[in-house]
């Protein structure tokens, strides 16, 4: 039996994403990309399970590599997004 719940979630999340992100001004397109990069580091939750469930040596090795990649994206992605956003200021705002 095909479980359609996942498809619902995917379609609705995509729709919400579309609605929200079309309103992001071009000014912030680079931070947007850096932020989605960090968020896509959420594959960490999949990698953690693979690395930690001790199925086989191959699974553990590939899992640890996956955790490393995803974690690098999470840490690096959030830091760089914040670093960028910190630079954007209006004329009337003090530095």
């Amino acid at each position, binding site marked *: 039996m095909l479980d359609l719940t996942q498809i619902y979630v995917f379609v609705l999340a995509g729709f919400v994403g579309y609605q929200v992100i079309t309103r992001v001004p071009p000014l912030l397109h*680079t931070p947007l*990309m850096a932020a989605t*990069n960090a968020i896509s580091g959420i594959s960490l939750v*999949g990698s953690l399970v693979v690395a930690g469930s001790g199925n086989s040596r191959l699974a553990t090795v590939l899992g640890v590599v996956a955790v490393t990649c995803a974690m690098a*994206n999470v840490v690096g992605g959030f830091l760089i997004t914040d670093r960028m956003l910190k630079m954007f200021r209006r004329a009337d705002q003090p530095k």
Partner: protein
Amino acid sequence: MSRDVVTELTYLAASVLFIIALRSLTKPDKARRGIQQAMVGMLLAVIGTLLKQEIIDYQWVGVGLVIGSVIGYPLGMFVPMTAMPQRIAFSHMFGALAATLVGIVEYTHAIDSGEGLTEFRMGALGFEVLFGALTVTGSFIAFGKLQGFITGRPVTYPGQNLGNAVLFGSAVVAFVWLMIDPTQSTVFWVMAALAFMIGVLLVVPIGGADMPVVISLMNSYAGLAASATGFAIDNTLLIIAGALDGASGFILSIVMSKAMNRSFANVLFGAFGTGSAPTSSRTVEGLTVKEVTVEDAALRLAYAGLVIFVPGYGMAVSQAQHQVREVADLIEANGGEVRYAIHPVAGRMPGHMNVLLAEANIAYDKLYDLEDINPTFERADAAVVIGANDVVNPAARTDESSPIYGMPILDVDRAKSVIVLKRSMATGFAGIENDLFHADNTWMLFGDAKTTLTKLVAEMKAV
């Protein structure tokens, strides 16, 4: 409350926080706080995952988390803003690699343990590995082109499109085969290998100036791969985060392709910039170029009422954003007004110029998008073009035979005077002559942008 419920609740919280974070990016003054909320969401999700009963070995998990943080910290803190496009391409590679590896492990585990795979799950794993693998190598090539260790010129050879189509067709056949019989692990490895190859071949023919589209597309693919992972391992948070990421990349791809006057289908199938060097029917013989000295340019700018700066990739290459601000400060000190006109595809990624100008401490309310600034050029006393070319080429408006005809451009030529900072008379990426450089109201200032602007600052101070 069982542990599973706690895990699921952290996932729910993370999903909501991610959406709030993206929403906050619609307002520059709220954005930072929003991203901090996303960080909290991520932390919750990781803690929730570590509570899962499947995880029995924390040692290796810890090793991965520590190495990842050690790699991630410099990627976040020390990469200069000018290197942002390659930095982003690089992390698309990381994200896609994580998804691909999870897919490979899930597949081998299901087959080796004799657990088997439903059609649905095989389909999800197939998408995961296909999208993931082609994004890994595609992003790597994009990274190489942006970093400069792979030629930024389009690489083409005869039969390229046909060859790519055959490879792509083979990958699809392998995918369908696996859906019918998931136990064929050889077919699985062949499919993965094909996807890795397709990623390389898809990006190799694409030139530097088309990178904004490629990067956006890879952003989208990396998201879709993450979403497919969620389908495969039945994880709702992954599905949601991947869908958000996919939607974002998709929107940016559309924005970028519109700004280059290319159809979206053209973008999706990577048929852009295939390198058959565009030839304009027009020649430049007999046209003259007027040069201006730094002294004259300084005078012109010092007494200008409204000056519009038009930055392009040349500004990024020469890292001249701080000098641009110094010139702007001097104009403003003399009572003039300064604005910045940003073309959507100026630079090598979406929003590239905005970040560089923000880094130089230029207030974002002085940065204008294409539609907002174009009516203003008429009343500008001077437009200063810094290392931009195709995005200010009036041929896009007037010359139907031009390859860029129809592309929205910045109407720089309508300003009372135009000063173009440029290294040489070489054509832009598209290889098209630019009439702007020969116009009566245009003066050229040859040389490296940073050096020229530094001299300009000195001259203006002396005026």
